[in-house]
């Protein structure tokens, strides 16, 4: 038995008062002379035994009466006593839902909201449930999960099991969606047998242990979602009481790192890299004394003070360099508040010596002089530094060949392959290219007047099944001297075009003038197919009124740049030429910006996704040459898991192996250690790979709470109640649901018993003639 008001238990000592009064009165009497002593003596003799019994009985009733009142005031909670009051018609069906979103890890005082929630849930189970009751546990994170397929019976064994499993639970690292969870809870309710199905059936109770985070309920109008509205309506119809058990802090200020990214598509060794960390305040007061620390490969690199106004989001820029090729990780840490999970953010990136690009210049085989080559300007764009010492500063290392050499090229040595006005692709080249792209290679195909559309379509388009994102068609030339084409983009969200997104930069994108291109036909359903995207188009224009201005010829033009994602690789198709034959593109900054970026973009595509959200699986595909028989994964918690490689059987994969790790529920840095011997007897080679898992930064970090009034507005008609975590143990969600006040809390039956005793005392006192006697 436990007491909710243990401090008031001292009142039980007042039970001694009737005894003291009795003893006091026994020794406090008036003295009076008396004559008829004989009658008195006989009367006393006749009644002595009865009087003693009556006195003792009255005394016991009075002592018990005070004891009961004192106990009731101390509010005892007893599982066994609750059992006494339990009856068939007073069963309880209780669905306990715990908010597992990461905001529940916010620590205020000694315990986190999660620990408070588990404690309160446990207290409720211990004190509020009994044999015959039924119980279910739901976990409300990004999605609702139920611990049990069917509600369990809350007998001693069942309760012990549930409590044990409850204590083993951990909050998730995902954002919460209580509104979505509500619909899932309502769907689960019919699993309580007879739940409100028949008149007089047990009305289930739903208790949600949460920090009452406002965004979890009102994020993007979550409760206005039809499913949530229907769930609320259903709850109201069933009369199911919905109790929110408040486990959160009253004023939860929070500062968080909500983003960390490299501004560079590819991180090159020794090159200056721009690292951007985004921090945000959800506090009601300006920050004070915040420090943002940057660690590169676990070594403190920089520490900067940060000041944030309430609600402010700010990007902090760090300039870093890494000097070793390989996988590195950056961690920013904002030492601030009790919600630790969003105080840090990780970024894993691969630093490369350079991007190996195989540039196949179609003009070389046609005997063109270097100055007339297809790729002269393109090479200037992707590798701007001249040969010699400066060339080392080029991130992209181009290797130019003619198309005749392509058949012999080892594609696996390259990150990117560029086909510039290559007439046709001989023999096995298309298949090899496709296999290479699917494995993560990046291919840029630039058309030109030499391209043979039939060959391209047969070998590379293959009715949409091949490499190209569109069928190649005829050449389109500007109809007159005063007509031409310009690039137009519907959006600049694509990483290739992102530099032109600012309004002042767009002019640079619109400046180049094109007079020719090849018409291509993307699949009719390209708009619906995620793997094909038209990045920009040609718009026909002409000079108007003497050349002082230009005007559009109207309508959306043909595609100029398209992308197709194939396997783990990407293909870009440029429908005009890279050289100067069809445009003055090479004269413009846009040319250099786009192609330099295109090569790094394509190269980056081959890299595995190393920065994951919580729950996203990590996948790594390795060539046979990188096979390692011994792989150990070290989780952020320090657990070591043996991993094995799976041989890939997909088409064109060759001898490749895949490693998958799907259990990424815990945010942090995951490390893979590969060990192998190149040959028997050789030294052990070790290689390390990392990937990072970060929480979904954003609204889940906004710990501001929803108030009861808003909840009532959002859940109209629902029998809603908000209780403190301490007030939930043992008390029913409602009198109706609980069948009238049974839950292990004993104050009510104790008071009733005290009232009964009071009546009994009065009756006995009257009957014994002691009304005036203490």
């Amino acid at each position, binding site marked *: 038995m436990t007491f909710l008001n243990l401090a008031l238990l001292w009142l039980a000592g007042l039970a001694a008062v009737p005894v003291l009064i009795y003893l006091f009165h026994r020794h406090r009497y008036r003295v009076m002379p008396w004559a008829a*002593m*004989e009658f*008195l003596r006989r009367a006393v003799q006749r009644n002595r035994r009865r009087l003693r019994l009556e006195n003792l009985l009255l005394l016991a009733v009075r002592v018990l009466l005070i004891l009961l009142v004192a106990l009731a005031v101390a509010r005892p909670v007893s599982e066994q006593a609750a059992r006494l009051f339990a009856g068939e018609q007073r069963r309880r069906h209780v669905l306990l839902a715990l908010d597992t979103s990461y905001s529940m890890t916010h620590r205020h005082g000694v315990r986190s909201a999660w620990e408070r929630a588990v404690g309160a849930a446990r207290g409720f189970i211990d004190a509020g449930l009994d044999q015959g009751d039924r119980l279910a546990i739901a976990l409300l994170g990004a999605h609702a999960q139920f611990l049990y397929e069917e509600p369990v019976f809350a007998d001693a064994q069942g309760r012990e099991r549930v409590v044990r499993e409850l204590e083993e639970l951990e909050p998730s690292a995902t954002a919460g969606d209580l509104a979505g969870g509500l619909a899932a809870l309502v769907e689960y309710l019919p699993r309580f047998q007879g739940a409100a199905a028949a008149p007089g059936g047990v009305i289930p109770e739903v208790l949600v242990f949460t920090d009452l985070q406002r965004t979890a309920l009102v994020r993007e109008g979550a409760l206005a979602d039809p499913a949530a509205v229907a769930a609320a309506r259903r709850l109201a119809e069933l009369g199911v009481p919905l109790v929110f058990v408040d486990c959160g802090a009253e004023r939860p200020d929070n500062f968080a790192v909500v983003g960390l990214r490299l501004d560079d598509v590819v991180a090159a060794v020794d090159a200056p890299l721009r690292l951007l960390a985004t921090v945000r305040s959800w506090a009601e007061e300006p920050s004070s004394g915040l420090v943002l620390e940057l660690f590169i490969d676990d070594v403190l690199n920089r520490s900067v003070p940060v000041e944030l106004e309430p609600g402010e989001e700010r990007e902090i820029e760090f300039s870093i360099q890494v000097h070793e090729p390989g996988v590195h990780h950056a961690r920013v840490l904002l030492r601030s508040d009790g919600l630790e999970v969003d105080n840090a953010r990780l970024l894993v990136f691969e630093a490369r010596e350079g991007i190996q690009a195989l540039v196949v210049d179609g003009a070389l085989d046609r005997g063109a002089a270097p100055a007339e080559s297809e790729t002269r300007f393109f090479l200037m764009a992707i590798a701007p530094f001249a040969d010699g010492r400066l060339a080392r500063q080029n991130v992209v290392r181009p290797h130019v060949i003619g198309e005749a050499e392509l058949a012999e090229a080892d594609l696996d040595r390259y990150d990117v392959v560029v086909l510039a006005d290559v007439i046709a692709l001989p023999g096995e080249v298309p298949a090899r290219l496709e296999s290479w792209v699917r494995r993560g290679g990046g291919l840029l195909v630039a058309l030109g007047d030499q391209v043979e559309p039939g060959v391209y379509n047969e070998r590379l388009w293959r009715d949409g099944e091949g490499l190209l994102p569109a069928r190649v068609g005829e050449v389109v030339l500007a109809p007159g001297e005063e007509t031409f084409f310009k690039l137009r983009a519907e959006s600049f969200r694509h990483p290739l075009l992102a530099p032109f997104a600012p309004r002042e930069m767009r002019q640079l994108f619109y400046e180049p003038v094109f007079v020719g291109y090849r018409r291509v036909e993307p699949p009719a359903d390209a708009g619906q197919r995620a793997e094909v995207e038209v990045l920009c188009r040609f718009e026909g224009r002409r000079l108007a009124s003497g050349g002082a201005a230009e005007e559009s010829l109207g309508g959306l033009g043909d595609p100029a740049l398209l992308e197709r994602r194939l396997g783990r690789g990407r293909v870009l198709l440029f429908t005009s030429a890279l050289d100067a034959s069809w445009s003055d593109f090479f004269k413009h900054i846009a040319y250099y910006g786009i192609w330099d970026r295109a090569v790094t973009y394509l190269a980056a595509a081959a890299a595995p996704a190393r920065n994951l959200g919580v729950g996203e699986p990590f996948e790594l595909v390795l060539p046979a040459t990188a096979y390692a028989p011994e792989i150990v994964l070290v989780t952020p918690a320090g657990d070591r898991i043996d991993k094995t490689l799976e041989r890939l059987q997909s088409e064109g994969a060759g001898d490749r192996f895949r490693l998958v790790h799907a259990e990424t529920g815990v945010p942090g840095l995951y490390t893979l250690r590969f060990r192998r011997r190149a040959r028997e007897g050789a030294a052990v080679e070790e290689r390390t790979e990392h990937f990072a898992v970060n929480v979904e930064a954003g609204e889940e970090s906004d710990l501001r709470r929803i108030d009861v009034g808003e909840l009532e507005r959002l859940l109209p008609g629902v029998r809603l109640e908000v209780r403190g975590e301490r007030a939930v143990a043992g008390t029913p969600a409602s009198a109706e649901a609980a069948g009238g006040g049974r839950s292990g809390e004993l104050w009510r039956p104790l008071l009733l018993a005290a009232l009964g005793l009071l009546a009994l005392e009065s009756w006995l006192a009257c009957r014994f003639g002691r009304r005036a006697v203490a």
Partner: protein
Amino acid sequence: MAREPAGTAAGGDIRRYLLPDVLARLRGLDLVARLVVEGFVTGLHRSPYHGFSVEFAEYREYTPGDEIKHIDWKVFGRTDRYYVKVYEEETNLQAFLVLDKSASMRLQSPEAPASKLQYATWIAASLAYLMLAQRDSVGLVTFDTEVRDFVPPSQHPSHLKVMLGHLDQMEPGHESDLGAVMHALAEQVRRKGLFIVISDLLDDPEKILFGLRHLRYRRHEVILFQVLDPAERTFPLRDMTKLVALEGEAEEIVDPIAIRKSYLEELERFLDAIRNGCRNTRTDYVLLDTSMPLGIALARYLATRSEVKLR
């Protein structure tokens, strides 16, 4: 305490002197006796005793033991019955006021206007006054375990002073033994008379009734005035009380409410025994408590006195 002028009591109604709480404010037994009797006689005009004559018969029927020389042969000639010619001194009643002055008579509960002894004294004084006014001969006996004072009967008006003097100076005694006293009186007083016993009778009823039968055997008339305190009759106590015996060493701490019923049952059983005993011995029995008007005692005496005359 102010003394009320005799016969002109405030309010003009002398009958109020029959009330014990009024009498308690008066000093002097003679005054009490006179006011009681005058108040009582004033009330007789409207009482069932109206028309009662204080003239007494000069003849009485012959009973064995009477001397033959006292038979009035003239009356015998007229009536063919033997009547004894009663001498002047013998025509009046010889009465004894037998007053219990034992310790138990000292009881006066807080609500009572007088102690039992004081009340008994008032009765005795009033009856003495009344009897002497009727030219009856009256004597006084006080007792506790035995007879303590014995004033022989006399019908002389000055005898009242003697009687009241004894009553006034009477001190409460010890335990009572009415039975023994009645035996002693039965043996001592040979001439048939009227014994007016005024006592709380708190003694063994068997012994009392045995003594009573002895008196009756001696052909004495007996009027038994049992005087109790109102508290003894109703046991109205509420708080825990230590009751200390007026006679002896006994004491008892009691919860009055708890034992009231039993006490009253015991009392009633005792009173029943007395009542039945009196009925069996044809003894007048009057239960009084000290809050009752004294007229009851006087009326009862007069009723008995008239019967005594007729017998």
